[in-house]
């Protein structure tokens, strides 16, 4: 099926949002052409395929672009439903729970993590943001207990929607810890999540995709510098 369909993914190695799409494609065993966008540059194809946001990831399937990472993940799950394990749960209530956590992670939790990543040195808000990130992780620890029902992942036996939504940020959490000198991952406070994170990062569909933390730190510093320069102009 993948042979006579054209599938391209516009992305970047560092972007957690791109990693989401790639995990989903790996789970379904679908081949695709990966087109790397450089930091600070936007290709013609990207601008044409995503004129509204001009952002990665963009999945282009037989010439039709699909944008926004969790929308791409759901699209992949629906188009290649039979090709691999379900990413969204089959039960409507469980799907609603998965969608809720994906929204929480992106709208409430990640902006706090991002604040830490781009904070200037000695920023007073960093400590507060770190506390809120940790509080969020504790909510997610409870969610993991409920959703996993004793199995390896939020999705049960295999990597699912919430695993993808949260797991993609794992490298960046570690990078933020080093960049800002804060401890976010505490085995005492989030033992289940720490176990989950290890399993997630070593899952077949994920392991080749998680970037090295040192490279993310370097990348994060560049992004931070660019943002701070733009802010002072």
């Amino acid at each position: 099926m993948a042979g006579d369909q054209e599938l391209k993914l516009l992305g970047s190695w560092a972007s957690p949002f791109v990693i989401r799409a790639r995990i989903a494609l790996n789970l379904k065993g679908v081949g695709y052409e990966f087109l790397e966008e450089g930091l600070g540059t936007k290709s013609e194809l990207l601008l044409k395929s995503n004129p509204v946001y001009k952002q990665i990831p963009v999945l282009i399937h037989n010439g039709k672009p699909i944008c926004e990472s969790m929308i791409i993940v759901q699209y992949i799950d629906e188009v290649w439903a039979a090709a691999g394990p379900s990413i969204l749960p089959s039960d409507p209530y469980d799907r609603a729970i998965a969608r809720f956590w994906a929204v929480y992670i992106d709208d409430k939790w990640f902006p706090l993590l991002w604040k830490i990543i781009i904070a200037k040195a000695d920023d007073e808000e960093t400590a507060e943001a770190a506390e809120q990130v940790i509080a969020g992780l504790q909510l997610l620890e409870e969610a993991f207990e409920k959703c996993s029902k004793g199995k390896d992942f939020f999705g049960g036996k295999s990597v699912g929607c919430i695993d993808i939504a949260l797991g993609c940020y794992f490298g960046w959490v570690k990078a933020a810890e080093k960049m800002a000198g804060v401890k976010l991952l505490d085995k005492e406070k989030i033992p289940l999540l720490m176990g989950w994170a290890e399993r997630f990062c070593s899952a077949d569909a994920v392991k080749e995709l998680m970037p090295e933390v040192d490279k993310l730190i370097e990348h994060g510093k560049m992004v931070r510098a660019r943002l701070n320069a733009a802010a002072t102009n």
Partner: protein
Amino acid sequence: MEVKLFGAWPSPFVCRVEWALKIKGIKYEYIEEDLYNKSSSLLKYSPINKQVPVLLHDGRPIIESMVIIEYIDDTWKQNPILPTDPYRRAMARFWAQYVEDKFYESVKRAFFTEGEEQKVAVELAVEALKPLDQELKGKKFFGGEEIGFVDLVAGWIAHWLGVVEEVLCIKVVDPENFPSLCAWMKNFVEVPVIKENLPARDQMPGFYRMLRQSGLASCDGKQQS
């Protein structure tokens, strides 16, 4: 199969869920919440957000209005709200998210700020409307001939935005600049299930003025979430 909805009469997020329930012909019990004095039930069912709407189906809560609408569509198959084709579903989700993230957020910022910050927010809101107007060209509704997911999520523009414009003394949707959007607004509020389920227009400015005042008062120089 018991369905309950915790809501508040002026909330566009509650309204869009009610529209979805009514489109599907689902019977439900409506529980009005006082947003300034939330019930213990609401706080129990929505401990993180502490907000309406909350849908309770056989005792299990579902929260976040767009998540609720997808849940309704997944659970009750008659009168589909989202398209069946995966690409069209992805497009529907994309535009719904766009309305929330780009347009609604700018309007919300304009609503809870003053002066230069408000001016910038209004400009961003107007800018954000352009792709929406473009998306509507040649279509009666975002969903095509019938209303769909995007129409429900964007529906607040057709009835609530005018109230915001009145309270802030601004103009966001100019018929000259956004002809397709204006036509859509007129068509949307004429759809029977929508027309019969809108909060009283004359009661809204008072509520929203109070909401703005309490928002400005609690904002100590930092942006409200």
